[in-house]
């Protein structure tokens, strides 16, 4: 079973790779865009730190760590998550999800891996460079344990984002026209570029428990800084697992509400 899905995944990846080799110019376009957006993302941060040495106890290099994880995550989101899930909404609207459901494999797996854009990986590279730059500015070499913890939390962040996306997509089975869902997602996600400590009261609550942005970028950065407690990390992983299960459950219910093209 697992081997079959692994083979399916590698087939999908191979197709995505071949398709992207056809559009090699996209590499440069995406690369240029990636640098441009990195500048856009860093600009407000520079304005703040031009006038203040710290923001909610975060110094500039520390806040850059959060930006680094943010850029990495954005690369994964734009390259592997957004395109697939936008395609599902289109499938639901046009009724072509029939073709996916008829195939002898899990529908969620098929739609989630159908449209991967490898060139967006440039963002991953850029995010990694920002992380290295911030760490050199901090004169800090994280221990292997800290690096492992931050990578684990990053994996949890990717899973969490994906689960949130699936939850949002499931709504499309009921309301059908959801063209701008991707915009909603990226605009909420935009707030994750700031360390969570910046937000207070209602926003802190919203961004920790409802849309757990804190887990996405602040916790991996804290893990690299060695300021994340084991308990908080464990809770973050548990939260990610909870969202994954919830997403799977809602997806199966939503599928039952699918009224294909003809019915």
């Amino acid at each position, binding site marked *: 079973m697992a081997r079959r899905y692994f083979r399916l995944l590698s087939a999908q990846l191979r197709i995505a790779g071949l398709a992207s080799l056809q559009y090699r110019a996209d590499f440069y*376009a995406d690369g240029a*865009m990636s640098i*441009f*957006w990195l500048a*856009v993302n860093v*600009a*407000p941060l520079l*304005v*703040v730190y*031009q*006038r*203040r040495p710290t*923001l*909610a106890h975060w110094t500039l290099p520390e806040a850059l760590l959060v930006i680094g994880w943010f850029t990495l995550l954005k690369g994964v989101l734009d390259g592997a998550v957004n395109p697939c899930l936008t395609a599902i909404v289109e499938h639901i609207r046009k009724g072509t999800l029939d073709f996916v459901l008829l195939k002898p494999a899990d529908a969620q797996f098929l739609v989630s891996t159908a449209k991967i854009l490898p060139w967006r990986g440039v963002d991953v590279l850029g995010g990694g460079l920002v992380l290295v730059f911030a760490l050199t500015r901090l004169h800090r070499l994280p221990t292997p344990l800290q690096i492992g913890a931050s990578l684990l939390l990053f994996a949890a962040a990717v899973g969490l984002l994906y689960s949130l996306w699936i939850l949002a997509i499931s*709504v499309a089975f009921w*309301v059908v*026209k*959801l*063209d*701008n*869902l991707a*915009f*909603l997602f990226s*605009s*909420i996600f*935009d*707030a994750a570029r*700031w360390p969570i400590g*910046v*937000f*207070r009261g209602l*926003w802190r609550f919203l961004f920790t428990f409802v849309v757990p942005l804190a887990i996405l970028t602040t916790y991996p950065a804290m893990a690299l800084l060695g300021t994340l407690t084991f308990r908080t990390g464990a809770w973050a992983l548990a939260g990610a697992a909870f969202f994954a299960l919830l997403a799977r459950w809602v997806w199966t219910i939503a599928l039952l509400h699918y009224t294909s093209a003809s019915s």
Partner: protein
Amino acid sequence: MATAPAEIPSRTALGRAVRALPTLLRVGVAEAVAYRAEFVIWLLTTTMPLVMLALWSEVAREGGPIGGYTGKDFTAYFLAAFIVRQLTGVWVAWDMNREIREGLISMRLLRPVHPLAAYGAENLAVLPMRLLLSLPIALVALALTGGAAVTRDPLLLLAFAVAVAGAWLLGFAIMSAIGALAFFIESTLAVADVWFGLFFILSGYFVPIELFPAAVRNVAVLLPFRAMLGLPVELLIGRLGHGAALHGLLIEWAWVAAAWAIAVAVFQAGARRYSAYGA
């Protein structure tokens, strides 16, 4: 035609557009009501100013006012920014891009109303619903800040109204020009992306323009981005004197004229070389 028409039709394109406007607006309102879920999502995507509000208020709370902005000023600024965005947001670039690629724009080209006028009416028609949702927020905000943050100067209020109208016209013209690029190139939405990146930084969407270093600020004031958001916001919360207000409005309307000239030129040139199936 055998029978004379009940009313004499206007001969000019502009007259036709004006006559069709009430109907186009009615259709637009009906569409906005029909796709409520999409509308609510759109509303949620525009809450970024509220996030920035939380952020900057915290910055001001931690270490005192920045560049003359206290916590209360930031609250007023970003609430005003939220409302101006509600009033001036357009999405014509996406519609136009899709309709040109899929050949749907043929339908619009056949109608006796200029497509730009029809798109304009569609984008205007959502304003009542947006007002309905954002006015309560404005009132609550007014109560929270004690009303002191909004200017009482009737001239500045008038300038605010003129600036919002200009911001809408400017945004619409630029988005139309970007949308009409789809007649020539494929990746118009990438162009829109770059535009929005610049807009986010230079319009005062993330940071009030006043907080930029002087060199950046002096350039930003001359660019169209600030006219689309920062200018009306600063007018409403009374941060500009009469001279600066007039200066800002002149720059804004100069950009409006230029942007419309470009938009119409790009659209006409594009429509001429357009050849969808059957067109």
